């Protein structure tokens, strides 16, 4: 897979001597990209200043947040789609005391990974991921494929 053979997209920042926030090895062995590292990568690859790249990245996520606030889904082809799911109110419990606690109705964002990204992610199994996302299967995701 050609994409995986490219060098790290934010190696520009690494080469320029920026101390990295994460604790992993350089480039290939890194496990987490933060927003500021994404900004560095955009600045390097897009050949614009970091300040401009920061405005772009913030604008993208602001626009997406605002769409979700309007109850509008977002579809990014090849990446995935975001939808807003309404949840009914229910009576929960304080796990420590056992007291019933009313949980109000809420809206939560939901992401469905796109086909291309899904395949890309699955193909990355040869690479390690960080240890804090273990395989305990306790998440509430649904596993339907379509």
């Amino acid at each position, binding site marked *: 897979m050609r994409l995986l053979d490219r060098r790290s997209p934010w190696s520009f920042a690494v080469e320029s001597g920026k101390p990295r926030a994460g604790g992993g090895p350089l480039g290939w062995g890194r496990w987490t990209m933060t927003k500021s590292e994404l900004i560095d990568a*955009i600045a390097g690859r897009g050949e614009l200043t970091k300040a401009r790249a920061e405005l772009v990245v913030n604008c993208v996520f602001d626009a997406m947040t605002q769409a979700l606030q309007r109850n509008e889904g977002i579809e990014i082809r090849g990446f995935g789609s975001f939808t807003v799911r309404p949840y009914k109110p229910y009576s929960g419990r304080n796990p420590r005391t056992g007291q019933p606690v009313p949980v109000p109705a*809420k809206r939560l964002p939901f992401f469905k990974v796109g086909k291309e990204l899904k395949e890309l992610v699955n193909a990355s199994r040869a690479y390690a991921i960080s240890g804090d996302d273990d395989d305990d299967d306790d998440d509430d995701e649904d596993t339907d494929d379509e």
Partner: protein
Amino acid sequence: MTKAEIVQAVYSRLGGFSKKESADLVDLVFETMKETLGRGEKIKISGFGNFVLRDKRQRQGRNPQTGDPILITERRVLNFKASQILKQALNPRETASAAEE
């Protein structure tokens, strides 16, 4: 909302970028995220959420149509965990006390 509308937001709100440049930059953002996740790295966007990867073991499942048992092979999946800030943006009246998980 489509990518074209995100491009429009970058173009009209930031100024200084042509439409083509805005489109290229928005593509670059998603392309970079895709490549990063495709290398097995997760992404944390503070104020928005985390894109996390999980390795799933092989397990027994069923074809929901026929009920036939099938083997679901081991795989790596991507989950999005919305940040509290994003959740609160969608639930304006919610108080901070309801934010615990």
